[in-house]
């Protein structure tokens, strides 16, 4: 069937200039534009670092270990994602769903560890003016000094890693929709309630959790307007997005964490 379809191509339309299907080209174009967003953020971070003589190096061994485990989660998720794509082209629906769920589990692991890292840093005094103060915590003087003397460190750190965390969160949601379709909506609503009610009101994640609610509403509208069974091309396109998120972290991890490590 595939061969006959291929023979039909010239008689129907001209073959694609880029040798692939339009959904994939669309995702590549999106990723190219997104790479410039992250490029600009990484350049802003590097600019601040070069132009500031007393740039802080606040990440102790515990933070480095935490970030390394996060990196391992993302790298492993890329492997499970590529196995999901492979299962989809082999038309093995069960394996495809399982690998997608494994990818999501690694992504959630990354988000949880990242959230814990953020919460610890905020509790120790590395914060932004927009974040509410943490009650009952004596801020460590080192981080208070960092926030006062080099405010661009916290701004670029939270801006860059926050943008990446948002991308990972949206990636997990994207994969959830591809893997489970409508069944994912109630799961997402439960995750929203857990994230919203399970975090204290002074945590940025208390408000950030509403991203999940917004996503649930958007997904409901999309699936209501265009219900469909996602095929191998959809899994491959979702995989491109997921690998891109992994790719960006390969630059954030060394530039933000390893170059700002304080190993005694």
């Amino acid at each position, binding site marked *: 069937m595939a061969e006959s379809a291929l023979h039909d191509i010239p008689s129907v339309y001209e073959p694609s200039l880029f040798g692939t299907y339009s959904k994939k080209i669309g995702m590549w174009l999106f990723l190219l534009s997104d790479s410039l967003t992250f490029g600009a953020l990484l350049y802003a971070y590097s600019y601040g670092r070069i132009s500031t003589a007393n740039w802080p190096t606040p990440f102790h061994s515990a933070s480095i270990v935490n970030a390394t485990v996060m990196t391992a989660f993302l790298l492993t998720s*890329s492997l499970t994602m590529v196995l999901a794509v492979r299962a989809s082209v082999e038309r093995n629906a069960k394996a495809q769903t399982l690998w997608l769920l494994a990818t999501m589990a690694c992504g959630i692991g990354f988000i949880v560890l990242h959230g814990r890292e953020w919460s610890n840093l905020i509790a120790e005094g590395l914060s932004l003016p927009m974040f509410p103060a943490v009650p009952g915590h004596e801020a460590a003087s080192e981080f208070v000094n960092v926030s006062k003397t080099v405010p661009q460190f916290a701004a670029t750190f939270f801006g860059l890693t926050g943008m990446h965390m948002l991308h990972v969160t949206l990636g997990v949601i994207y994969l959830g929709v591809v893997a489970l379709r409508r069944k994912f909506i109630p799961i997402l609503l439960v995750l929203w309630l857990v994230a919203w009610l399970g975090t204290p009101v002074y945590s940025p994640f208390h408000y950030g959790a509403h991203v999940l609610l917004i996503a649930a509403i958007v997904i409901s509208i999309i699936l209501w307007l265009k219900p469909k069974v996602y095929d191998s091309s959809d899994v491959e396109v979702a995989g491109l997005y997921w*690998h*891109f998120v992994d790719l960006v972290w390969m630059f954030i991890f060394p530039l933000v964490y390893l170059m700002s490590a304080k190993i005694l």
Partner: protein
Amino acid sequence: MDSTQLAIEERVAEQHRHHRKAVFFYVWVALLVMTAIEVYLTYQNLPPVKMLTILLGLSFIKAALIIGYFMHLKYEVNIMKWATICSVVGCLIIMTIFFFPDAFRILHIGVK
């Protein structure tokens, strides 16, 4: 979806079937090993410029592996590869030209 799109999708899926699963595991192990090297170097307290050079070198190798094998760009047609890589690299070069001379100027003479 029209028949052209379906035919192209089927051809791309056919290309995927020819990839050995082991290749993905080798790439994954290589990425983990390079990450371990980066962390090990962090604990060696190397001079910042030397450290940055090594870390960025490893990051670009990791990025190339992810783009080439996991994102499958290695197996795309040439025009797709070149259009993608050249556009991103071109934009990053322009950002570099604009950002870094100014950052070094501020470091040496201060904000005027």
